[in-house]
């Protein structure tokens, strides 16, 4: 295995979760500082760090003012919301992936592959068009995306259950079919009513982007991420047991039906509110949990926090690539995650078939 060296580094027998988490937090902070400086206008990491520190009360006053005002505007005004959104979106998508994988007991599950992202996008565009949830104000978009995600998860889940078991072929095919239907719906809506939809166009919903992030976009996904993460961590034993199968989980005292409903709720909530602000960013929920499990094994007590941090780091860096690769033009970040994640998906699919 290529990962033996890495595995040894994260020696699972003596794996100290504190060290791993601290390491990942440190990498996240370094990534944030570096990524804030990268872009059409380069700001040195030193200046970026000082700009950030100067914003912190108490110690902020002691920081020497070595940067130009325009740099501060770019870092704080333009890039910080985007990088923070990247962290939250990456963490949410990864955790959604983990939750869905436990639900369908298959590590190929991901909100994009199973059509949940498409369902959320379609519902969100519908909501915008008809103003169905307009009375809910600024959260109307997120709520319609959540409902779309929930309906899709329930639909795909029940379609792929054959005699009480999740059939993998059925699962992946219903995911593909539902994404196509939902993408079609989104496209029709965005093409026929372009003015009503403002910033959000079909490309946004289907390939995802963090461009146009505002600090106002952050609060809801962040709060939802924290709540869902807490719920999942509390239930980590149940999640582990679900991977053994429903019957074993039940025999070990888990209320399987209730836990599955909880997982559907948590996964829809997180994917819904995330997609409402970032569109469809695919394969993050597939890639991140996969590499996390290679490093720390299958125990959800480890998988959940490590996935969240790694997902954030991944999306932040891919987003930097997205705005640098063909600068001054910008790639939608979802296109890049698909180019990276698609091959991994094919690899996992082939390996799975070989094993059977």
């Amino acid at each position, binding site marked *: 295995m290529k990962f033996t060296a890495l595995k040894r580094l994260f020696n699972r027998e003596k794996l100290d979760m504190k060290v791993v988490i601290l390491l990942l937090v440190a990498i996240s902070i370094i990534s944030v500082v570096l990524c804030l400086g990268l872009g059409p206008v380069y700001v040195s990491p030193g200046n970026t760090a000082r700009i950030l520190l100067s914003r912190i009360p108490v110690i902020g006053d002691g920081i020497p003012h070595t940067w130009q005002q325009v740099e501060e505007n770019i870092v704080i005004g333009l890039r910080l919301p985007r990088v923070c959104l990247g962290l939250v979106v990456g963490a949410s998508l990864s955790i959604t992936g983990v939750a869905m994988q436990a639900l369908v007991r*298959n590590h190929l599950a991901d909100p994009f592959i199973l059509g949940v992202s498409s369902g959320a996008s379609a519902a969100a565009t519908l909501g915008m068009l008809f103003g169905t949830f307009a009375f809910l104000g600024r959260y109307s978009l997120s709520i319609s995306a959540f409902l779309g995600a929930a309906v899709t998860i329930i639909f795909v889940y029940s379609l792929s259950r054959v005699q009480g078991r999740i059939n993998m072929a059925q699962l992946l095919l219903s995911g593909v079919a539902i994404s196509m239907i939902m993408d079609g719906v989104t496209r029709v809506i965005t093409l026929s009513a372009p003015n009503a939809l403002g910033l959000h166009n079909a490309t946004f919903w289907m390939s995802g982007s963090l461009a146009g992030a505002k600090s106002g976009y952050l609060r809801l996904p962040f709060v939802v991420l924290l709540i869902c993460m807490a719920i999942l961590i509390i239930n980590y034993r149940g999640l*582990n047991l679900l991977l*053994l*199968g429903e019957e*074993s989980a*039940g*025999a*070990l005292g888990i209320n399987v039906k209730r836990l599955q409903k909880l997982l559907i709720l948590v996964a829809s909530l997180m994917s819904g509110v995330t997609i409402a602000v970032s569109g469809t960013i695919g394969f993050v929920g597939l890639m991140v949990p996969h590499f996390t499990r290679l490093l720390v094994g299958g125990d959800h007590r480890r998988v959940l926090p490590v996935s969240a941090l790694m997902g954030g780091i991944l999306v932040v860096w891919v987003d930097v690539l997205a705005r640098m690769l063909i600068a001054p033009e910008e790639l939608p970040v979802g296109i890049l995650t698909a180019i990276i994640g698609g091959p991994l998906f094919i690899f996992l699919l082939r390996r799975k078939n070989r094993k059977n």
Partner: protein
Amino acid sequence: MQLKVDNMTYSYGGKEAVDNISIHVNKGEFVGVIGPNGSGKSTLLKNIYRALTPDRGTAVLDGEALFSMSHKKTALKMGVVGQENEVPFDFTVEEIVAMGRTPHKKLFEIDNEYDREITNHALEHVGMESMAKRSYLHLSGGEKQRVIIARVIAQESDFLILDEPTNHLDISYQMQVLDFVKRLEVTVLSAIHDLNMAALYCDRIYVLKGGKIVREGTPKEVLTPENIYEIYGVHCDTAIHPLTGKVSITFLPASVYA
């Protein structure tokens, strides 16, 4: 009496797979359920360990109504070894066994020294202590089944349900698994495919056919050539084996019998 099931009926849409069955298991007994494929053995056990919900019928475990008990409480009283033991995710052997401790843990409680002790002890019982850190994914079928037995030991319940635990195993593993279970000295209700195994390990046997109990009694009473012909449609000869003192069945192919 540890378990008493009365008039249990379960149907998979239309056809009754378990038809008005009443059975009981006394404390310390090893009770076998035998019968042809599709006779409802597994369905009966699944209804008892609550993977399925019966259409009708009651069950009492340790003097308490089973179906109104919380899942957690059921898991403290009753351990299950099922047929399906594939785990498509990467866990170590030790982690799988430690999952047996789940019903003992409160919401925020993490595994303590006692849990680790029980886990190690369970692994020793099935001779897998040297494999504790191995990945469960890469074990052989027999080794996996031993790990699952260790998990049910770690669960510390005094009543076990085994759903054809030796189905895909070769003979050495079949005997090993049943020996491990016998050594635990707990109450057992087990579906068993192999009649000679049933004769060797069971105190009492229920025979299922078409979802109904058609015979019950000790292996000597139940496993007679006439009964076996009636249930399975095969000819055989039975004798008491001089070493084991148990019934031993020799099946007769058509060439011999004719």
